[in-house]
């Protein structure tokens, strides 16, 4: 028997879960066997924490490389969580940089250049984003394959399940709560009989899937691809229902969070990003702790967003362009965003899992849509990783990777999540090896 199946069995027994994805690393065999036993039942999660409009590279990059690093001026709010972080600087998106705020995310997440010349809510990438490739591989065990959430109101995020399959996002805390913890949520150890209507709903979905297949036989290749996506989604929901009918995994830290308020009022006519971000963080963290999903893409703010942050004299995007000099106002906004990121990381760190924490079992990637917001450059792409102890992330360090292709980072993450992939990206975005130094 291959060594990696040992972990699979371990998880299968302890977690009460269906067969897990094959995990190609040998951590369980090599280091700290004790911890592997104690924590082996906890799944590995991955999530993106995204904000729009880039940074100010000169004030972003920490001065010192390696373990002796200190947070840069823009990262000061992260000082208290420094030990959980791996700051990666110097990589660049190699695909065509034609479209402000769009080319960066397209290159980084899909490994390919953006299709079309504009990046709006109507645009699409040419390929699936890597978070969705991870979701496809590891999401089959959970009720939701992946979660796409937001703080700033918007309809679509960055994640793509495939070309032209840009995924909608949920910016409403109450609606997210209802989806995750409302009807259909079963607390750990809940042994009550599932609702008899669930199996009826499955028979309806079965008929709908059949209709999708029949229709697909009449249409062209492109439409067949679209119907296949619908068919797959219908089948996934059937599986969701099947999961509801079985007993939920017994995860000690899982509980139903407090119901968020119906709406979060503006403060002085400005969106209360802080409160909303805190609530969304708690919901996402609990979704992970309850193993409702293992992959998320959380969009704090959108590319080109013009959010009016506290004390700013203009919207965020406008300031990145109009403000001269060292852009003190943009700096203040970025530090505000980092404070909210720190809150998110701390929320994960407070949830125990075995003798570690949820953060240890979650690899979080913070990034944005370009490097310098003012010029839309995609060199020196800003990225910070947090958590990821069980993924082997090298932590409390500043990894300087000058001139490296940002796609290497994407490939690294997929491999750290256990995917057997040897390459990522197309054309100038294509790489065949991970980024050296990201893992221990």
């Amino acid at each position: 028997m291959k060594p990696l199946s040992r972990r699979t069995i371990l998880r299968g027994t302890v977690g009460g879960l269906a067969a897990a994805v094959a995990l190609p690393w040998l951590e369980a065999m090599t280091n700290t066997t004790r911890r592997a036993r104690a924590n082996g039942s906890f799944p590995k999660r991955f999530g993106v924490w995204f904000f729009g409009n880039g940074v100010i590279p000169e004030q972003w990059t920490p001065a010192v490389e390696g373990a002796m690093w200190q947070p840069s001026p823009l990262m000061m709010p992260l000082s208290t969580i420094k030990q959980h972080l791996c700051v990666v600087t110097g990589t660049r998106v190699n695909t065509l940089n034609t479209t402000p705020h769009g080319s960066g995310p397209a290159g980084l997440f899909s490994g390919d250049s953006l299709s079309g010349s504009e990046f709006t809510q109507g645009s699409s990438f040419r390929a699936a984003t890597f978070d969705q490739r991870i979701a496809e591989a590891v999401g089959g065990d959970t009720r939701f394959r992946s979660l796409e959430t937001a703080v700033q109101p918007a309809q679509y995020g960055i994640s793509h399940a495939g070309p032209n399959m840009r995924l909608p996002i949920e910016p409403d805390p109450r609606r997210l709560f209802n989806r995750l913890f409302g009807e259909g949520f079963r607390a750990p150890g809940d042994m009550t009989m599932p609702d008899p209507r669930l199996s009826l709903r499955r028979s309806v979905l079965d008929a709908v899937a059949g209709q999708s297949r029949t229709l697909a036989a009449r249409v062209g290749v492109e439409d067949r691809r679209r119907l296949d996506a619908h068919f797959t989604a219908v089948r996934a929901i059937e599986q969701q229902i099947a999961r509801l009918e079985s007993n939920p995994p017994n995860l000690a830290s899982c509980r139903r969070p407090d119901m968020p308020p119906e709406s979060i009022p503006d403060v002085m006519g400005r969106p209360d990003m802080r409160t909303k971000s805190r609530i969304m963080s708690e919901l996402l963290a609990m979704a992970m702790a309850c193993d409702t999903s293992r992959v998320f893409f959380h969009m704090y703010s959108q590319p080109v967003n013009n959010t009016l942050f506290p004390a700013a004299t203009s919207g965020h995007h406008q300031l990145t362009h109009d403000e001269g000099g060292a852009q003190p106002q943009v700096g203040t906004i970025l530090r505000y965003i980092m404070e909210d990121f720190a809150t998110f990381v701390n929320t994960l760190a407070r949830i125990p899992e075995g003798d570690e924490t949820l953060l240890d079992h979650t690899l979080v990637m913070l990034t944005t849509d370009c490097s310098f917001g003012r010029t839309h450059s995609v060199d020196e792409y800003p990225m910070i990783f947090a958590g990821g102890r069980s993924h082997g992330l090298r932590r409390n360090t500043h990894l300087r990777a000058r001139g490296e292709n940002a796609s290497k980072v994407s490939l690294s993450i997929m491999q750290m999540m256990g995917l057997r992939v040897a390459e990522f990206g197309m054309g100038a975005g294509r790489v065949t090896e991970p980024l050296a130094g990201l893992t221990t």
Partner: protein
Amino acid sequence: MNLRTGFLLSVVATLGVACTQPAPVQDSGVGSDASVDDVPPVDVRLPPAAAYVPNHPRLRRLTRAQYTNSIRDVFDETLIVPRSLEPDKRPEGSSSIGGTETTISQRGTEQYQDAAYDLAEQILRNPMRRAMYVRCTPAGVRDDACAGTFLRTYGRRLWRRPVTEAELATMVAISGRAAEALMDFHRGLEFGLSTILQSPNFLFREEIGTIRGAERRYERYELASRLSFFLWNGPPDDALLDAAEMNQLQGDTLAGHVDRLIQSPKLRRGLDAFVTDWLRLEELDFISRDATLFPAFSADFGPSAREEVLRTIAWIVLERDGDFRDVLTTRESFVNRKLASIYGIPFPTRGAGPTQFERVTFSPAQPRRGILGMAAFLALEAHPTSTSPTLRGKYVRELILCEAVPPPPIGVNTAIPEPNPNARTLRERLEVHQEVTSCRGCHRFLDNIGLGFENFDALGRFRREDNGATIDPSGSIDSTPFADPSSMATALRENPSFPRCVVNRQRRRAAAPGARAARALVRRRRLSPARIAPRDGARRGVSTCERPRGSAAAAPADTGRRRDGRGQRRHARRHARRH
């Protein structure tokens, strides 16, 4: 061009796309019917047929509005249609094109599922509705014949075609099993109705046709759907479906049905769908303003502003049957109390609620005219604390004149000076756009229009001063000068690009070509690559919109200069290719 004409021309497009090479408009029978009496001689020539990629038949996913309209048309107006549905996608500003591209995500599938059960409960648990829609009395908990009658009737209306016997058998069986499990005929029927509502046969419009020689012929039910969704933004009614069933959708009968659809009050929905896409009105849901600068801003601002545009255009087109170009110059508008206070005009009715709109006429002394004088445009194309002549100019170029404006080149330093004694107004501060060659190429086309709206602040309120200095609202559109927004409106009205733009957009909505073909319909303005990426800018690796001061601080701190230079040249090449 009056709007009736515009609409009919577009109907021609709907019918015309039955040919892989659309016939010229004037050759079409319906088109010549459209020559209504007092149409001013306006050039509404459509692009040559070759500019259209033959309408490629694609499944079209229902937009949110089409979903809602389908439920309300097939059942009744009082149903509460869930609003959490897969969002519309608007590539090239068109939900019509978006519908041909997008699929249904897992989240969307969940939402359609929730909506289906929600609606089925509303329809089958309310005794009045149940009596209205289920016309047979079930013989017991399970009555396949009664269930079949209901599912056949509503399946046909919702799927816009007859339900096949095999499809019906599956849904009858589902309803029967559910009825037995839940011991209730109508509860069981909810599962059958939910199947209809979750089906791709409902969520996607199948208008594909078959190719015969050089033509693509739409099947009769497909043609019925194409007509009703284009004109009503909703499903065919029974009369149209019956005509399709009897194979009558051709010749005079077809023309009669088109006339009937155009006379219906539902035409307003088709018009609204067009205007919403055209003027990007859905984005009004996402704007925000600094409350200290704009105390008048509140959550109902966006919806109020949108309603004003929709009502005013509907008034001109459907009530007055006027010249469509009047939408730019009309002094009539529809406002509620909120908008009246923003515009500084008295509101006729005392004690009116936010949904009460009244028709008002702006005095000729006011510069506020037409849709470009309305809060929707003025607030949409502004920042949270200030106006944006650039965004406003871009909106006019792209939406009113159908010209494409390229994004700014990568690597440009876009900083503009803060207000200072030498440059108090935004016009003065934006002088850099005109002085620096790399900016001037595009900005002279944008700012010269956008600065004409400076008398309106970021919420659409009138003002004479900016930072204490008097605003100069003059400018020019290409070679036509204007003195203020009022004369700009007149200039735009007479611009031959405007009617062509509207008709092309309408036609595009009907035909829903692929996004690439849609882009081909937009005129690309000639911009010299040299103006976009000046040689010195390319050599330095950056180009700047700040006045050349020679100070190091003005240059961006970016480390990737070489690459930025490359991006610039690419940008220039992309421009060159478009010529």
